[in-house]
């Protein structure tokens, strides 16, 4: 085996790409090298902003292989006298052997008796170093980037123009220290131009460090050599090392242990040699809401806010690339940017509060929600309608209704504030903060406005879990549902539905939010929870006056979309996909009428099945069989007089007993196991498709009743199973 080292040196790639592209590099190489029979082992890939690195063990030479070359059929190989025919001799001659040296084999495995003459050609393996250039080319071509760019590059692989994520500036490709030749050309007037990048032994470290040798190329012999040389030149190739360094630096720079933040992973791929510096937010800005302060620090500057510890006030940690030798001056620069931004924010905060939020609702008439879907004022009005509909369903109490109504109307007003126009990610939050500032009597409305864009994540612990009082759950839920359903209905009506990985309007996330509100937040008082199906209908008709023609398929499309998303959410909660399918797609029940009930049924099914796995598998197969039979013939009402065997009577009695049974979903499902014996006996003893039409219809009726028995809970035939 030999070590292959490949380094692709590029101009700065976005941090968000690094881990994905690195993994692709590993996979694409493994596939391409495998296809070329290089038997890749221990393939590892590492990424940093200016490089993608791959190291793998490969064979030195492709193994030799044999290829069968088929000739004429054996029965056409000799004539009646047993002499070789011209066809056989020609075939032998073409392959440079005598006819006697040819073997016989079946060309088509489906016809093993039809033999042909066969010549076994031995193909010597090529040297790996000869094969690798094409592999490298194929891998470079196969890397997919969130956004590609033309950089006037060309690869001589027959495909020509070579767009990539960022311009490539150098490449190291070494097979046990030997250069694997590969070149990228300039593209000039649409054709191949001079070489711009050629593989070699030279890598580049940090642009400016160490000062004595900054910018000069560094020779490397191997992967280990590369890693060590780059570490001396302020590059940590391995993301895990960069992350460890960040955590260690954070500990020593802040004096606090265990500082954690989502930014750490972004920092890891933002720089090649992370060093952490700490700055201070001037006390004058402590009057700003925490959310505003953190938005400036986290979202705009990518600094981690530090609170508590020995120091008063707020400090921030920032990552820099390199040794941070000139820390005091760098931090001063960072603080100046933070101050300028916070000064803007403080100005906005003061200006915005000069008008009560309610006054801004009318301004929403000037803010378009989406071309063709009206303004945000229209949207707010539609949300109010949806809230009213929920009250009409009896799922919102009188006070809750009034609060939710007001919150829905005010929910979008903060879009006209200076703060949200400057910091769009503060939408909702600012509305809540400004309402809160208007007085304590608005606190419940404020919280509903504050959180109505949530839940944003599928994590069950994500906000606003634990941030709302129990009695506020349904007000929040009503506004949140109204917002998301209105958005979904609008985009579906315009047929701007998510496709593949493209979901520019965040519709999957919105639908996830709807399902999570219903599953995890709504307090179903008196057993009542909003009927999603009815709300979808209401949301769609809400656009009747806005859209000239409301497509008839919108409602249906949304329902299918929601069923799919519901199954997805349930699937992430540890249930098997077949169990999810059994409760989401149940013939007798529309899952969208009561989403919480779907979860209850699913839990029951999961528990009952776990206790009697064998019985359930068995019944699943029997029910599938029953359903297949029923598809072909219509069932009739059951007439016990027509039963001919005990097996029929026994099944009928069992079904009758189970059908009359009360109790929880789980109890009833548990009893299902009792069907196994009579069902088996029925299928063993009874011919369903009897000659006599009446007997046949009667038996079909019995089968139909049997499989329908649990349709209120789950479609057992959807469970996987084998006998």
């Amino acid at each position, binding site marked *: 085996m030999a070590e292959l080292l490949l380094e692709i040196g590029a*101009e*700065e790639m*976005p*941090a*968000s790409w690094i881990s994905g592209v690195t993994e692709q590099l590993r996979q694409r190489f493994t596939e391409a090298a495998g296809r070329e029979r290089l038997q890749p082992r221990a393939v590892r890939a590492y990424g940093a902003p200016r490089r993608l690195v791959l190291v793998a063990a490969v064979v030195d030479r492709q193994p030799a292989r044999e290829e069968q070359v088929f000739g004429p059929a054996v029965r056409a190989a000799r004539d009646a006298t047993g002499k070789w025919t011209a066809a056989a001799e020609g075939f032998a001659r073409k392959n440079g052997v005598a006819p006697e040296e040819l073997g016989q084999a079946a060309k088509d495995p489906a016809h093993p008796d039809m033999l042909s003459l066969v010549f076994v050609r031995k193909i010597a393996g090529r040297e790996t170093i000869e094969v690798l250039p094409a592999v490298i080319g194929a891998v470079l071509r196969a890397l997919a980037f969130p*956004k590609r*760019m*033309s*950089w*006037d590059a060309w690869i001589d692989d027959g495909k020509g123009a070579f767009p990539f994520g*960022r*311009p490539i*500036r150098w490449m190291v490709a070494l097979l046990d220290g030997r250069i694997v030749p590969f070149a990228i050309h300039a*593209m*000039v*007037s*649409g054709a191949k131009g001079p070489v*711009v990048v050629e593989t070699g032994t030279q890598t580049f470290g940090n*642009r*400016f*460090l160490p*000062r004595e040798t*900054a*910018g000069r190329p560094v020779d490397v012999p191997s992967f280990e050599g590369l890693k060590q040389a780059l570490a001396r030149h302020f590059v940590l190739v391995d993301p895990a090392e960069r992350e460890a360094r960040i955590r260690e630096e954070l500990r020593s720079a802040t004096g606090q242990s265990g500082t954690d933040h989502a930014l750490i992973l972004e920092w890891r791929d*933002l*720089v090649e040699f992370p060093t952490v510096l700490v700055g201070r937010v001037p006390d004058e800005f402590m009057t700003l809401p925490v959310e505003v302060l953190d938005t400036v620090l986290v979202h705009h*500057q990518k*600094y981690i806010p530090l609170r508590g510890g020995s120091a008063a006030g707020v400090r921030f940690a*920032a990552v*820099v*690339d*390199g040794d*941070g*030798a*000139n820390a005091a*001056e*760098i*931090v*001063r*620069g*960072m603080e*100046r*940017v*933070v*101050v*300028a931004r916070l*000064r*803007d924010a403080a100005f906005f905060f003061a200006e915005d509060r000069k008008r009560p939020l309610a006054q801004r609702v009318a301004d929403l008439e*000037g*803010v*378009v929600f989406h*071309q063709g879907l009206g*303004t945000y004022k229209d949207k707010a009005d539609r949300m109010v309608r949806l809230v009213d509909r929920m009250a009409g369903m009896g799922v919102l109490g009188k006070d809750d209704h009034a609060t939710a109504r007001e919150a829905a109307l005010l929910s979008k007003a903060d879009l006209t504030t200076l703060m949200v126009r400057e910091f769009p990610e503060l939408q909702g939050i600012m509305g809540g903060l400004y309402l809160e500032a208007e007085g304590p009597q608005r606190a419940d409305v404020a919280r509903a406005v504050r959180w109505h864009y949530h839940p944003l994540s599928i994590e069950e612990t994500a906000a606003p879990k634990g941030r709302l009082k129990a009695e506020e759950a349904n007000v929040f839920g009503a506004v949140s549902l109204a917002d998301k359903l209105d958005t979904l209905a609008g985009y579906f009506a315009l047929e701007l539905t998510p496709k593949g990985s493209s979901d520019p309007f965040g519709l999957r996330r919105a639908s996830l939010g709807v399902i999570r509100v219903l599953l995890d937040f709504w307090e179903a008082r008196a057993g009542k929870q909003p009927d999603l199906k009815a709300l979808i209908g209401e949301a769609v008709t809400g656009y009747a006056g806005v859209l000239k023609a409301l497509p008839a398929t919108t409602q249906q499309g949304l329902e299918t979309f929601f069923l799919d998303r519901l199954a997805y959410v349930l699937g992430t909660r540890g249930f098997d996909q077949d169990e999810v399918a059994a409760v989401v797609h149940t013939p007798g029940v529309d899952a969208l009428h009561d989403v919480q009930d779907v979860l209850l049924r699913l839990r029951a099914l999961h528990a009952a099945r776990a206790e009697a796995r064998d019985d359930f598998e068995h019944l699943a197969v029997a029910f599938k069989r029953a359903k297949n039979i029923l598809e072909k013939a219509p069932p009739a009402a059951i007439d016990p007089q027509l039963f001919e065997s005990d097996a029929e009577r026994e099944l009928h009695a069992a079904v009758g007993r189970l059908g009359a049974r009360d109790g929880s979903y789980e109890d009833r499902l548990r009893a299902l196991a009792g069907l196994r014996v009579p069902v088996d006996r029925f299928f063993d003893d009874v011919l369903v498709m009897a000659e006599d039409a009446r007997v046949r219809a009667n038996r079909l009726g019995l089968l139909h009743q049997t499989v329908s028995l649990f349709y209120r809970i789950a479609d057992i035939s959807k469970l996987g199973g084998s006998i």
Partner: protein
Amino acid sequence: MTGNPRMTLQEIIGALQRYWSERGCLIHQPWDAEVGAGTMHPETFLRVLGPQPWRVAYVQPSRRPADGRYGENPNRLYKHQQLQVILKPAPADVQDLYLRSLTAIGIDPAAHDIRFEEDNWESPTLGAWGIGWQVLLDGQEITQFTYFQQAGGIDLAPISAEITYGLERIAMYLQDVDDVYNLRWSAERLYGDVRKEEEYELSRYSFELADTDLHRRLYDSYLAEGWRVLKTPGGRTALPAYDWCLKSSHAFNVLDARGAISVSQRAGMILGIRKLACAIAAQYVGPADGEAARG
């Protein structure tokens, strides 16, 4: 501060122009019509089209009426100055060339945190977009760096690199001042001496005084004149047509600052400018094989 910390604004401009002049750039002058960014200067927008190599640098005062703050905000301006560099085709060492230009104005890259962070650029009015970064110096954005991919709706080959220095930002950093009006423009004059009254008057005009009906008519007339000129038989009218295109863009910006454009109108007006810009680009590159009309 390392290097030469006290360069005046005009010294910074002089140093950057000298630097790029020494690297083969033609030093051009600002375009003599109102533009929102150096990209709109025909030396960028038209020159990046077609196959001819081109290197140019110029200062472009850039008017953004909606950013006016009556001379009261220390960071925001109705009119700021960009130093724009176009390198076509983009050389392989373009990042290094840029970084060395920072040294030329007294910034020691080794002593600072200089970062190229993803920031792709798009101009809906020009039908143009590119891939690139904002360059951060200790957290402050000082330059926009873009590999143009498309201009006037036309895919570009070769690709040009555009480097846009925010001159006020850089000067504030170098001179260590927090208020743009305290920048030293020359040894004798502060930025405020030169421009503060202008900022006030232009802000007042665009927020309070601009006649919106007139500007609506201007927007329409400018576009109409642009199309009329462009379609004149015989061609060779891309440049005057482009002047009218720029004027319509400025009229649009004034209306926008006056709050006179609803969001739904907005998209339509932007599209109006883009259509003309794309038609101009198409005439400029000429039919079929993309041979430029001049050059």
